[in-house]
């Protein structure tokens, strides 16, 4: 990125198109980059940091929890043990057991793993498609831009969830295809955000400089324009993750997502809702974990937005 202005250089201290100020000693000139600035602001946001901690803890628990519980107590998420019936929470089974005698804690953790991975991967896919699409559309400009954005408008006009349902029924009900379907439909917002960013970026001098050096268009888009849109993309990404998790659970709740005996938070909540009158814990624990997870992700997303959004800068 020798001749491009990266995100870290785009600060108040070094305006675009100007040579960097000579390095005088001391902190006077050693400016903070956009990212350092954002990181500092994020760390000051206690609730966002706490949410980040909760997410890390939950993620870690989902990652190693099932293995540990299997090693320690022999619980696993799928083996049925009817003798263990549905039991209310106890020291042995902190979340109780489900109708088939499976430890609910293990099932919630495995389900959380599904939710987190589908959410992250689908949001990542959506962010990638949206960023490339938006940047290419905006950089190309003219008729290409109009046509590409009309496609986005049309997709916006299609009922989103119905599209995913059709895709899931076409592609089949597997975890991989689920995240593909969610990601394939969820990139529209990112595309619009990135397009708006690139619209103003592409008029700037560093793009003109790159072009006059004969840099091919593809390189300008990928090396110079896209890196500069990362801020808004990250903000959109962090807020897409919880909505993807919600949609995976939505589909699993309808029986269209992860298939039994494999648990997912959505299908666990569905099971729990069907028997909540007698076995309240089968609804309360998966629902509670889901809510806490979404709450923490939303709070962190808000924090990231406040930290990265230039309009909020003081």
């Amino acid at each position: 990125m020798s001749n491009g202005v990266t995100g870290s250089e785009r600060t108040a201290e070094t305006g675009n198109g100007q040579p960097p100020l000579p390095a005088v000693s001391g902190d006077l000139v050693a400016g903070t980059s956009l990212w350092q600035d954002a990181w500092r602001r994020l760390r000051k946001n206690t609730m966002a940091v706490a949410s980040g901690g909760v997410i890390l803890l939950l993620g870690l628990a989902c990652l190693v929890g099932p293995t540990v519980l299997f090693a320690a107590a022999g619980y696993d998420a799928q083996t049925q043990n009817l003798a263990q019936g549905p039991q209310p929470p106890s020291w042995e089974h902190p979340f109780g057991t489900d109708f088939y005698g499976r430890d609910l804690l293990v099932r919630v953790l495995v389900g959380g793993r599904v939710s987190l991975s589908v959410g992250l991967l689908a949001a990542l896919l959506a962010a990638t498609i949206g960023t490339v699409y938006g940047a290419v559309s905006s950089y190309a400009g003219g008729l290409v831009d109009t046509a590409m954005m009309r496609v986005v408008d049309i997709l916006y006009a299609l009922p989103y969830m119905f599209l995913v349902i059709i895709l899931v029924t076409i592609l089949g009900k597997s975890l991989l295809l689920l995240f593909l379907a969610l990601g394939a439909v969820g990139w529209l917002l990112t595309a619009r955000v990135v397009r708006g960013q690139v619209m103003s970026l592409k008029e700037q001098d560093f793009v003109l400089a790159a072009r006059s050096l004969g840099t091919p268009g593809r390189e300008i888009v990928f090396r110079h324009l896209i890196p500069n849109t990362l801020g808004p993309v990250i903000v959109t990404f962090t807020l897409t993750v919880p909505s993807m998790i919600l949609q995976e659970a939505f589909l699993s709740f309808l029986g269209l997502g992860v298939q039994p005996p494999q648990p997912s938070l959505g299908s666990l909540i569905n099971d729990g809702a069907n028997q909540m009158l007698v076995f309240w814990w089968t609804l309360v624990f998966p629902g509670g974990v889901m809510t806490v997870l979404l709450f923490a992700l939303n709070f962190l997303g808000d924090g990231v937005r406040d930290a990265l959004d230039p309009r909020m800068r003081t």
Partner: protein
Amino acid sequence: MTRYLIRRIIELVPTALVIIAASFALVRLAPGSPFSSEKEIPPEIRRQLEAKYGFDRPLPEQFVRYVGNLLQGDLGLSTKYPQRTVNEIIAAGFPVTLSLAAVALVWSLLVGLTAGIIGAVRQNTVWDHTAMTAALIGISVPSFVLGPLLVLVVSLRLHLLPPAGWGDWRHLILPGLTLGTIYAASIARLTRGGMLEVIRSDFIRTARAKGLSERLIIWRHMLRGGLLPVISYLGPAIASMLTGSVVVEKIFNVPGIGPYFVDAAFNRDYFLVMGIVLLYAFFLLLLNLIVDLLYGFLDPRIDYS
């Protein structure tokens, strides 16, 4: 204004055509057929069935015929429910879904606007923090968690409202609240943000300077600013209320359009899937148009020419 409206409506035509073509392609090019699911059907009966629905013709011809029927308001026959036309199924289910969405919309606007206004007017006070934390919790509780919990507490423990079913107004309340809460939370956040953006602008200062009462400033001037982001959110929000009601209809056993759609997608009930998708798509296009018009009404700076 009239010219703008006419131009927008003319612009809808190609968009609508592309939507019809795209959903037709998506639904028809999918593997499987409406008659392939359950037991094996003898080839000659199958041929007869395909002839009845016109599936034996080449796809482009089917498409032209479908669009032709569509223009006459005929959405075709259901393959899953051979006795019923798609029009009948939609006519039976869609009003139910619509009334659910209407209750959800009223609830979300009522709660959302109130919380948002309190948050903005009392910025950085306990009121503000409480309202915004509540809003964030509201966004994070999925409808399929909130719904069963409401049933558990309100219906089964307190016996205040029926837990499920359809009939009179009491059946609307719990599903409506379940569906609307998440949007109430978003509306609260948008209202607060929008009002805070105008709260320090010159026209508010002018209003204060000429001695307007604080109440008038809030209601006449600040709220306008607060409403702009809410208005543009309402289009997609109502659309997602309509689709989101699939889950709520399942929880509360409400005979809306949602369960039909999931069923139809599974059984490759081509015309029913298409019918519902197109219904929602046109609803969405219409909503977006209304939103754009409302926008100009609220923000006189927008010029339509």
